[in-house]
């Protein structure tokens, strides 16, 4: 017979065991001995500090940050979820950082190497360069050991290890890194690298401690990526997977008197509604990356402030396939509708980006019509295309797309794309579902707007992992199996060249070799792109502006508007500044608790 007391005893044992296991589940990080700084500080260019001094000294200087998922590790290079960068910035320094205005500032570096100060030496005939970095000599790891050039070289070797390493932007141009002395090293380039300042810094890359990390475990999987030894403002105390991470002030941090905050708890709260309510209830002090709706809601709360990045990064775009659907060679098999530049221009004229931005994105978006809209390369004089439905219709008429039977959908009657006579202007518009409701509404609105000019769109929603997968995995874009796609993208850092190359260069047309999914090829553009890889800022600006002109005329892609980059924070805090160039904790050492 079923023995109830015994079964209940068994289940009780299970619960007690799980409670015990639970208590053992956390990664407890052994605190490292703090050492006294022994070297005098070196004067450096200070990063932007936005906190203001307050006369108060609140008793509780502990804060809570809420994020939806665990950071994969403290190494943002590996998965780049943003949450890894967030905790990395709290604990580890790179050679440089990028402030919200796009200005690169030194972290471990004593100064930024430039042509002017002799830190960068070009060999113009060979097309190579050498960069000599000088490091601060007053920065130590939390165990008291100094951060030196050996750590940078160790990091470089770990990244480039053929067996266990990975790839970071700009690393292909590097031939090697040599130690000059304990606090300086030289990077030898086999090409001109325009992003050399962020090779070992910026948003993703930190310098790792050679004496602490086990190189044999590999850069991607080493234990120090989950239990880092800090040289940043905080040290990790505990990581309970899926629940929380706790950090305390690094008493060995080089910037004495900072950070102001004693303890940071990063809580993992998957549901966005709950994160919002925690901000309202005062149980969270930072809600990282809030979307348009949550930002608008929290703006109304007296205990919550919103920080919006002064610059934008992600832009909502329409990607148009100029090759026939299911193919990747636009010359051999042009798209029956989109291979005509007049059609692409007409579509651009028929989409009302302002209405979408105001009504769906709640006014947090700004219209964008050129790739070169971010400082420092936002100097090109590209006129914003007009929203003009009638002009769009006229352009389609001229291009041979008419609607003689008034069916509402245009047909090819003399069109120049090679489409058969009578071919209907019917296409598929695909977007990805992870962005949520705003992108779905945008997709519907665009379909309605294009219907007004006689283009019928069939709407499809897929997962991002299906849309962007490699061709072998059946990725929709890499296999060319689409007409028009709608999604958002933008580049990290301040140099647009690699991003532009990946979307518009000839090399990137080949499947899995880049993301020129428009399969758009323009010789003049390619030449300008190649020329733009120069350290001559004036020439770069000129090249970029000429490229902007070509993109404006040829319309291989339609840029619509920016998407929000905002963080919400408690009024207890001062100094929080959202940025598209980094994550919110980029300046956590400067934050102050004011209530």
């Amino acid at each position, binding site marked *: 017979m079923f023995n109830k007391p015994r079964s209940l005893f068994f*289940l009780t044992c299970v*619960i007690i065991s799980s409670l015990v296991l639970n208590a053992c589940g956390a990664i407890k990080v052994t605190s490292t001995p703090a050492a006294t700084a022994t070297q005098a500080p070196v004067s450096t260019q200070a990063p932007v500090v936005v906190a203001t001094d307050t006369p108060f000294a609140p008793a509780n200087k502990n804060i809570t940050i809420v994020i939806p998922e665990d950071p994969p590790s403290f190494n943002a290079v590996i*998965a780049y979820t943003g949450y890894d960068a967030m905790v990395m910035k709290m604990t580890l320094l790179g050679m440089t950082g990028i402030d919200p205005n796009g200005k690169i500032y030194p972290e471990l570096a004593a100064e930024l190497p430039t042509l002017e100060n002799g830190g960068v030496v070009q060999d113009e005939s060979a097309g190579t360069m050498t960069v000599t970095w000088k490091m601060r000599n007053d920065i130590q790891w939390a165990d008291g050991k100094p951060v030196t050039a050996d750590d940078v070289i160790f990091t470089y070797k770990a990244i480039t290890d*053929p067996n266990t390493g990975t790839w970071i932007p700009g690393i292909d141009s590097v031939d090697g890194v040599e130690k000059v002395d304990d606090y300086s090293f030289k990077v030898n380039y086999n090409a001109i690298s325009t992003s050399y300042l962020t090779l070992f810094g910026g948003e993703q890359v930190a310098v790792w401690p050679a004496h602490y990390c086990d190189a044999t475990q590999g850069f991607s999987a080493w234990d120090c990526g989950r239990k880092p030894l800090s040289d940043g403002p905080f040290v990790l105390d505990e990581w309970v*997977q*899926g629940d929380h991470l706790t950090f305390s002030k690094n008493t060995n941090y080089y910037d004495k008197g900072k950070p102001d905050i004693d303890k940071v708890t990063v*809580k993992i709260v998957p549901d966005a509604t709950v994160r919002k309510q925690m901000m309202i209830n005062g149980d969270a002090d930072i809600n990282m990356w809030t979307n348009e709706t949550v930002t608008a809601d929290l703006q109304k709360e007296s205990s919550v402030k919103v920080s919006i990045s002064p610059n934008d990064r992600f832009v909502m775009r329409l990607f148009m396939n100029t090759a026939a659907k299911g193919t990747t060679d636009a010359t051999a098999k042009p798209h029956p509708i989109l291979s005509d530049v007049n059609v692409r221009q007409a579509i651009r004229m028929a989409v009302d980006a302002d209405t979408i931005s105001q009504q769906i994105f709640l006014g947090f978006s700004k219209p964008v019509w050129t790739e070169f809209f971010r400082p420092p390369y936002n100097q090109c004089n590209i006129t914003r295309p007009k929203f003009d439905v009638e002009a769009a219709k006229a352009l389609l008429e001229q291009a041979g797309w008419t609607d003689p039977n008034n069916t509402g959908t245009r047909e090819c009657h003399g069109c120049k794309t090679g489409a058969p006579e009578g071919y209907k202007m019917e296409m598929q518009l695909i977007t990805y579902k992870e962005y949520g409701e705003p992108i779905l509404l945008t997709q519907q609105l665009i379909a309605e707007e294009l219907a007004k000019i006689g283009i019928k769109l069939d709407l499809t929603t897929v997962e991002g*992992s299906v849309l962007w997968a490699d061709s072998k995995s*059946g990725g929709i874009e890499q296999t060319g199996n689409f007409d028009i796609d709608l999604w958002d993208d933008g580049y990290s850092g301040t140099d647009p060249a690699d991003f532009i190359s990946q979307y518009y260069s000839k090399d990137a047309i080949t499947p899995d070799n880049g993301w020129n999914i428009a399969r758009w090829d323009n010789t003049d553009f390619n030449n300008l792109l190649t020329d733009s890889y120069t350290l001559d800022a004036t020439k770069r600006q000129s090249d970029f502006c000429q490229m902007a002109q070509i993109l404006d005329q040829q319309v291989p892609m339609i840029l619509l508007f920016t998407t929000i980059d905002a963080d919400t924070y408690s009024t207890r805090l001062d100094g929080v500044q959202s940025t598209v160039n980094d994550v919110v904790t980029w300046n956590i050492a400067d934050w102050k608790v004011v209530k």
Partner: protein
Amino acid sequence: MATYVTRRLIQTIGLLFLLSILLFGMVNLAPGGPLAGQGQSRHIAPEKAAILKRQFGLDKPLPVQYVIWLTGNDWMKVDTNGDGVPDGIGTRKGILRGDFGFSFRTRQPVLNEINLRFPNTIYLMSITFIIALALAIPIGILSATRQYSIFDIIATTFSFAGQALPEFWLGLIMILVFYAWLKNPFTGAPLLPSGGMSSADSFVLSDRISHLILPVATGALGWIAWYSRFLRSSLLEILPLDYLRTARAKGLPQRLVLYRHALSNAMIPLVTLIALDLPYIFMGAVFIETIFAWPGMGRLYYQAAIDRDYPLLLAVLIIGAAFIILSNLIADVLYAFLDPRVRYE
């Protein structure tokens, strides 16, 4: 019985093998893949994608990937540095030897990831399960013995509601009421925490209990509704039977008639049902764990599915499948154990 159990266990091995092929194929052949943009990048740079393909083993044909996943690659030469030439022996042991590989997302061994979440799920779900049973059985009995009474009507109404209300909605309503609206009259703080396993650095029993109330209540409601309805129906079928009438006619007290003779028979199908639900205790509940920020297996599975973290996803699926098969076996054995009329030859 022993022969039957042995035969079922042998069948289980064969079934798991077939399932492993099916699951591996389904996960890998689904459109999309793990190299489609991670985190902030919509795309992975081609250079990085090539390295990841090699490190993840995705550069090999699917049947080879399956064999390596099953048996490891420490018996074959592999190209570790990407120059196209095999240069060393692999290090993977394969799931047959307990090596489920490493997570694509965290690069940590899959079993480590599971071990960190598994106790949390058992902790939450077993308490939920016990509370659900502790409430469902008396409710079921009372509803059956007082059919059409006010209690029965109320219990029936709540049962239908409990079965109909989706967990994700109920969970959010619970948070709205007990975290956002209702406050502790003495401290002004929310009446109950919104989620997580604890808010204290050290173990405080009251803190742990307060964090359990909302997820347990949300999870238990469905089970209470389901089990109490099941027991009520089962008892209502049994109570009018002749053998119970005979027992009452012989002067046996009603309590004994009900608990010894009626309930023991009515519980047989319920116990089978409970045994089939056992995998939930081990595999967790995605919605409850997500809404209440509970770091359990359900959330781990969901995250792995979103990230296309194949090794982690496959490990959770295979372990889940094994639990389901074993639960079925336990249900069958229990059925024979509880009902002497059932014999397996």
